[in-house]
Structure formats: C-alpha cells, structure tokens
C-alpha cells in the first residue's frame, strides 16, 4: 500500500501568537516551527497502515526550503521518503491542493492522508479540495480507519456534530485525520539518525505547471476583541449573587 501524507509546518500551536503592528502577519520571533499536530496524526496513521499491510509512506510539503526540517521530523518518525515542493509565499488552499494533486498523479498512492486542519490558518479545506480535483472519494475528520486492501476500500469513522458516522470509501481516497485517530509516536534517536540519510526530493513549484494564482488573498490581520476578565469571587454565594444581580443572568 502506498500512502502519501501531506504535512504543513506551522508555528508552535502552544504559543499564543500576536498580530504584527503592521497587520501583515504574526510575530514570528521566538516561535518554533513544528509539524501541524493533525499532520503528525496523519503520519502516524500512515506508518501503522504500512506496519500492518506493507508498502511505503511518502511525506509531502508545499512550502519554503526550510520546511525540509518538518519533513525530516516525519522521516525520523519512520516515513520512507519526502518531497518538498518549493514555493515561496503563502499559497491559498486551491493552489496547495492543485500542487498536491499533481504530485499524487505522479506518485499514484492508494491513500492520501491529510490533517483535518492546519492550526495556523484553520482552513480545514485542502483535503476536500484535493479529493475533488482528483475525483476521489473523501472521508474527513476521521477517528478510526480500517483499510481493506483486498477489496480496495476503507471504512472510516468520522467525528461529526451529532456524534460518530461511519462510511466506506473505495480506494484511492483522501482521508483527513482528526485528533482521536491515534497518538503519534515520538521520533527515536536511531530514527533521527536514519532520517538524515533518507531522500527528500526538491521540486520547484514552477516545474509542475500548476496555476497557483491566488483566489483567496489575505489582506490583513487584526487582533481579536480582548476580554476584560480576571475578577475573582470569594465563594459560591458571591458568585450566585453576582450572576443574578450584576450579570443578571439567573
């Protein structure tokens, strides 16, 4: 089974980001770049499927040259090889999906695993767009995945607003990973050593002949409305009294 996992580098999600003074982005000083947590889950799932069924796990990032580091993290976890489509600047979701579709057309994986959402732009789009571009089925927000290579299909349990839903999709398919799909492993020291020797193919985005002209353009960022919290109450009685008399909510 050949699995293509797409991963996006993002600013460490446990740091609270601040909008830059000029509104053109966020303050990046002192914030580490890491693999998007949902993509780590996707990598882990790919590795588990390979461990159970054999095959290959290829990791793919569309981004600047430095993204090589996050690909290495996935290789250290155990992925077999990496592809970095070098693209400067922020591509929109349609452009990223078109690039991934192009790579998928060449690699011909049985499965593409994406994160459900990148925790920087919070788009939650690329996997679904990709599925449309490839004319493949999709299963999003997946918390359990059971591929059946014999029948060339996969059963996927999805986290939806009303609970859980299970669908079956023929392969090849695009799957987007939700939080509870698995618990990603850490890269081991030997894993990190091995990763250094693994192949990361650099592909200039221009060589793919994909139209990456933006259709969604981010014009500016502003800070969110600030709350004025922080007040403490002495006890439950005071809380109830404030909720009734001040907040007038009871």
């Amino acid at each position, binding site marked *: 089974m050949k699995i293509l996992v797409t991963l996006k580098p993002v600013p460490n999600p446990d740091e609270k980001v601040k909008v830059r003074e000029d509104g053109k982005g966020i303050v990046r000083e002192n914030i580490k770049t890491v693999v998007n947590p949902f993509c780590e889950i996707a990598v882990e799932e790919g590795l588990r499927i390979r461990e159970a069924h054999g095959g290959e796990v290829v990791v793919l990032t569309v981004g600047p040259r430095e993204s090589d580091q996050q690909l290495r993290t996935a290789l250290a976890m155990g992925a077999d090889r990496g592809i970095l489509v070098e693209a400067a600047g922020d591509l929109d979701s349609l452009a990223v999906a078109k690039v991934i579709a192009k790579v998928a057309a060449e690699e011909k994986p049985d499965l593409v695993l994406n994160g459900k959402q990148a*925790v920087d732009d919070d788009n939650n789009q690329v996997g679904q767009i990709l599925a449309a571009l490839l004319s493949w089925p999709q299963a999003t927000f997946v918390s359990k995945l059971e591929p059946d290579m014999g029948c060339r299909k996969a*059963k996927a349990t999805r986290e939806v607003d009303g*609970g859980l839903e299970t*669908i079956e999709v023929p392969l090849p398919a695009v799957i987007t990973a939700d939080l509870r799909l698995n618990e990603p492993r850490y890269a081991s020291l030997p894993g990190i050593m091995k990763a250094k020797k693994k192949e990361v193919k650099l592909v200039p985005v221009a060589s793919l002949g994909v139209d990456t002209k933006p259709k969604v353009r981010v014009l500016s*960022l502003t800070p969110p409305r600030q709350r004025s919290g922080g*007040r403490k109450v002495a006890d439950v009685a005071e809380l109830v009294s404030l909720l009734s008399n001040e907040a007038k909510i009871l």
Partner: protein
Amino acid sequence: MADILVVAEHQEGVFRKTNLHTLTAANTLAALLGGEVDALVLGHGAAPVADTLAGYGVRKVLLGDDPAFARYLAVTYAAAVAQVVKEKGYGAVLAPASTFGKDFMPRLSGLLDAPLAGDIVELEKEGEAIRAKRPIYAGNAIATVELIGTPVLFTVRQTAFDAAAPSGAQAPVESVNVTADPRGTVFVSRQETKSARPELTEARVVVSAGRGIKGRENLGMIEELADALKGAIGASRAAVDAGWVPNDWQVGQTGKIVAPELYIAVGISGAIQHMAGMKDSKVIVAINKDEEAPIFQVADYGLVGDLFKAVPELVEELKRANSIQA
C-alpha cells in the same frame, strides 16, 4: 450581482437551526451585493425542511429530492450543488461552518475552482470586491480575506450571525431535477449522541467539564449543574480523549464554537485551543483550584477552589434560588 444560494443542513429531514444563522449571513451578503437569496434542500423525503425554510424570507426554496440524497455524503452533495450553481448561475454559495459545511463546501470549491472562505464572522464590500473576516490561529488573529472570481463560497460561523426570524410568509418551493452518483461511497452507520439537554451551540448556558473532574463517575455533578441552569454540557479535549464524554461535546479550535450567555468552565485550565471555542461567550465563569490557570484571564467571575466542593454547593444555591422564584 447574481443571486445567492444557501445550502440547507438537515439530518434525514430534520431541520437544523444552523440554517437560520447561515440565512442571516446570506441576507447580509445580499444587502452588500444585491441579488436574491434562495435555499437548496437536497434529500429524500426532505420536503418538511424546504417548507420550514420557506418561512424565513428567502425568495424560493429549491428542493432536490432523490434517493441518492437519502443520506448526506460529501461526494453527492458537492456534485449536486455544483450542478445547481452552474445551471442557475449563482454568484455565491453559503453553508454553515458545521461538520456538514466543512465537509462538502471545500469539495465544492475544488469542483468549481471557486474561492472559499471558511468559518466567516463578518462580510464586507470594498469597491466591487467582496471581503470576509475569519478567525485564524485559534482566534488569536482575525484575517480579512478577499475572494477573487465567481462564484464565491462561504461557510458561516453560527455564533457570529443571529438566527433569521420568520418572515410571516411562505416562499414557493420549487423542485429541481438533480441527482449524483456516490461512486462507491456508502453510508454505513451513525452513532448518535442522545441528550435531552439543549443543543450545545444553541444553548443559553453551557457547563463544560475538563480533566479536573477526574473521571466519568463525577459527570453527574456537572449534569446536575447543567440541569439547574437548563444548560448544555461541553467539555475540553482532555475530557473527550479520556472517554468520559462524547466527541461532539468538545469545545474549541477543533471542536465546537459556542457563545452562550453564560459559560461555566469546571476543572479546565484554559488552553489556547479551548479558549478559541468559548471566549466569545457573554459571561464566563471558571472554577479551578489553580489560581494561575489561564482560564481566569478570560473569566468574568473566577472561583479559585476545589470543584468537588464548589460545584455541589453551586447546585444547592441554584436550586434554592429556583425554588424561591417558583
């Protein structure tokens, strides 16, 4: 400006209130750009959904009734909506930013090669260009985005747009001839979270439990508090991951976004990802034994203490207050 289409969310013919918030966003867009708002219901035996929507001030409701839509699937929905949009020439398509809209709308974006802004909280016009605001980085920044091309697609954050009110009139319901091939995707089953409490995203009060409650056996206390306030129950990721509560109770960046009149966080530390889902609540109460917990920074009323003592006390106080009122 061309007309605007709202794709209705329902579960096998049961109307979802998310639609009313989406309609308000569509009306906002119509006010900015001109054009009329229509709704599209895809389903099998979903006429009641169309009839309900018809009462909320749309020009007309399109009803695509076909066995192919008996169960929602992204593959059939996206294809059918694309067909309707192309045939009728809609200039904008909106759906709720629920797991329904977030599933098929990006697929539609791919099919139509059309720009999509997800989870929008505001719409604006600048010259002829249409702009939307959407929270990014777990709500720590608001991005203003411009959509280039037509049609433009949006999923709408429910808490940012009021529910549309009934118009007092019934718009016509028109059948559309549309079908789609699931191409091998099949619906297998659904495991529904059953609850007699109000819907999490619609509730006036939400009581949320975190890792601090220590175990499923202590959920009863949270239920009593929610019931005393006629509220819904939410949770942090930690409580969901531990298996104490169902997945769809998770509030946060990657769970549900809520903005009730009153949000009570019990034994929740206030991670960035959790706050992304509740910091627009009108009044926030936090109960936590750690006075340094970040949740207190956004709480209007913070109670530092042991939740196992505070929550039962609070339930008692509320019951007493309720019985005085009654």
